[in-house]
């Protein structure tokens, strides 16, 4: 899919672990892991809102569009 998640980059920038993020936004590790690996098919606004609040960033910092040719 051309939309990729940069959650791991943002976590590294904020020096935060996935476990801590999971605890602070109240989403299971399994679900966050799906999001981090880019296997998620959709993301709720409420989830995006919670992540942006905790990581103090914009949705565009977490999600980005990459052309399929560039992925290959």
């Amino acid at each position, binding site marked *: 899919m051309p939309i990729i998640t940069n959650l791991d980059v943002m976590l590294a920038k904020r020096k935060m672990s996935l476990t801590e993020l999971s605890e602070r936004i109240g*989403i299971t590790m399994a*679900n*966050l892991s*799906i*999001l981090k690996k880019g*296997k*998620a*098919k*959709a*993301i*709720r606004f409420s*989830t995006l809102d919670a992540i942006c609040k905790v990581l103090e960033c914009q949705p565009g910092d977490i999600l980005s569009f990459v052309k399929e040719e560039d992925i290959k």
Partner: protein
Amino acid sequence: MANKFPFIKSINFVLQIIWYLQLLFLFALIVVSVLIITDSPIVDRYKLKGFRVQFQRINLDKSIAGSTIYLSNGEGRLHNTKTGDKFILYRIFSVFVDAFLYTLIVLWLKKVFKCLESGDFFIRKNGVYIKRIAYAVIGITLLPDLIDYFINLQVANVLKIDNLIFKARLNFDFRSLFLALLLFVIAKVFIKGAEIKEENDLTI
């Protein structure tokens, strides 16, 4: 999870019994077929030479007060000691097709109910199995009847008997075909349900 669905569990148990009975029947069918084909003395082939035929008209010899008497549009078993063995083989083939398709249906039903028992309702596998069952139901409805039709056609061509007119007619059970169509719809619902469930599971 399994205790939540006692009805499905009991159906699963019944299906398991039917499955073993079906296997037993298949085994018996194979044994009897081999005995028939090898002309074993254990099986009396003479008794098997009677086979189901459809007739259009049987003219009765006797007439009452000058009027012609005849039977029409009936079905019965024709016994002829000189009938060729190929008709017996066709019948065995027809029974084999029937039994094989029934076995497949029971097998796939068993798999569907096993998934249901474990609480996995909307998974793609269930839809695929139900679709296969639908194809098997179509097969059961059409194939044995088609074989019977061709046997009757051959009987009508080979056996020429005075006062008797054979007929060959396709006797499809359209109710089964409608059931198969319904199964296709259910299969589609299951496959679509599995897709929606997957999408829902992967929405964070």
